[in-house]
């Protein structure tokens, strides 16, 4: 049985439908990448998975339980943690307090503690008492990831963690992923950086206009197929 899966997941914002019957599955311990252009529905999918958006109960199941209609605190307490798009650190809290609040709703024992997160991202230890928003973009991203890890989740959702960051910084952040995977967590990343997504994932899904247009293992998919799935049949050629 897959760890997390969706069944014909739909979502709308008022009159605007963002997701049209999405079926994806996530197995234990695997890293899934979801790629697609802006507006494809990737973030809507993440918001549905994390409980920020409410859906039909049966449209999302986690370890066999129907969690589609649960709200974010309930989803989070079951072990699905989110690194939200734009990082969304709490400005009134210091770096350390931002990390600590990550385990507010779920006090699970496991690998991740303050100390082990500081070991993963050493620069944060020096800045632990600074206001979270005083850090650079890359460091903030580390805090956001660390914050999600503090609840020792079984599923980690990462929404656009490379957005707005220099390639060097993105590399450093993704360098931490193997260690995260070692602890057994399954990861879903949403990425616009296709190369990075292909490098780090076991399987990818491609989305366009609210639908899955392609799925498979990175090694099995060729560039043209991804291109078509990403941009559509009559899209422009990439330079």
């Amino acid at each position, binding site marked *: 049985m897959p760890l997390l899966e969706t069944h014909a997941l739909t979502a709308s914002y008022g009159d605007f439908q963002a997701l049209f019957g999405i079926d994806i599955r996530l197995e234990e311990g695997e890293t899934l990448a979801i790629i697609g252009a802006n507006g494809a529905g990737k973030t809507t999918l993440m918001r549905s998975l*994390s*409980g*920020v958006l409410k859906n039909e109960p049966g449209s999302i199941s986690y370890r066999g339980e129907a969690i589609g209609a649960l*709200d*974010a*605190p309930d989803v*989070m*307490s079951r072990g699905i*943690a*989110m690194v*939200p798009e734009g990082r*969304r650190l*709490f*400005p*009134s*809290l210091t770096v350390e*307090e931002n990390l*600590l*609040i*990550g385990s*507010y*709703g*779920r006090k699970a024992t496991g690998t991740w503690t303050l100390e082990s997160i500081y070991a993963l991202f050493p620069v944060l230890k020096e800045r632990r008492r600074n206001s979270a928003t005083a850090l650079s973009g890359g460091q903030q991203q580390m805090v956001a990831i660390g*914050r999600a890890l503090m*609840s020792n989740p079984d599923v980690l959702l990462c929404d656009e963690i490379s957005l707005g960051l220099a390639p060097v910084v993105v590399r450093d952040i993704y360098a931490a992923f193997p260690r995260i995977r070692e602890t057994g967590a399954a990861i879903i990343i949403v990425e616009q950086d296709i190369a990075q997504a292909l490098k780090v994932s076991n399987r990818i899904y491609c989305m366009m206009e609210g639908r899955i247009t392609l799925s498979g293992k990175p090694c099995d998919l060729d560039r043209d197929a991804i291109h078509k799935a990403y941009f559509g049949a009559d899209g422009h050629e990439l330079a």
Partner: protein
Amino acid sequence: MNWLDTIAQGILLGGLYALFAAGLSLVFGIMRLVNLAHGDLIVFAAFVILLLVSLLGLHPFVAAFIAAPLMFAAGWVLQYHLLNRTLGKDILPPLLVTFGLSIVIQNGLLEGFTADSRRISAGALETASVSLGPINVGVMPMLTFGSAILAIVTLNQLIYRTSIGRAFRATSDDVTTAGLMGIRPQRVFAMATGLAMVVVTIAALFLGTRANFDPTSGPARLIYAFEAVIIGGLGSLWGTLAGGIILGGAQTIGAAINPEWQILAGHLAFLLVLLFKPRGLFPRAVD
């Protein structure tokens, strides 16, 4: 006129106003809610204390100690079931619902207790005084001021050193992301109002023992609380204390010049601050 005495009185009065204001400041800081029934809730708490004193023959301080958890529960329920429904982007519903609540509380108290003026007797403490150098200060005002400091210190410790305090600040920053951390904003808000009601109970104790009160005394207390918060600046509890002291000082000095001018002097001080520093003297939060 003994200036030193007047100023001392003013500062101590500031303690009472800071107690009025602290709960308001806390609730506004966390959920951007201004409860127009805040003053009436202080009066309500005073009546609860009065009931406990007259029905059970308790000392007012003991009665307040018992009333505090009752008020906490009342505040929790009020926020969770009524006021949480009004929170959202529109500022109209919370304003109008709390205004309606203010009218309901006042008239409920009028029906229950009549319009008679009341006082909570604290026995010998009421007139006891202590001499501090050239001036004499009352023991009750000292206790009031001391309680204000204690309340603010405790609240600050709660907000900056505890897990629930982190939850308060996170929720106030970003409700949605707080949810992703497993924080339930509805409960956090209820908790905040409950805490505010505990402070309100302390304020009620010192209000009731200091002066006469009746069911319609609420709105004036709301105005003083509000003035103290604005003068001090949004988001800072110590600022609220400063605001209370300035307000108390202005009122006492005005009263010393002409007793009819006491309240007016306070309002004028408030308007003066508003004129030069619209965000208060020590603002911390960004709205």
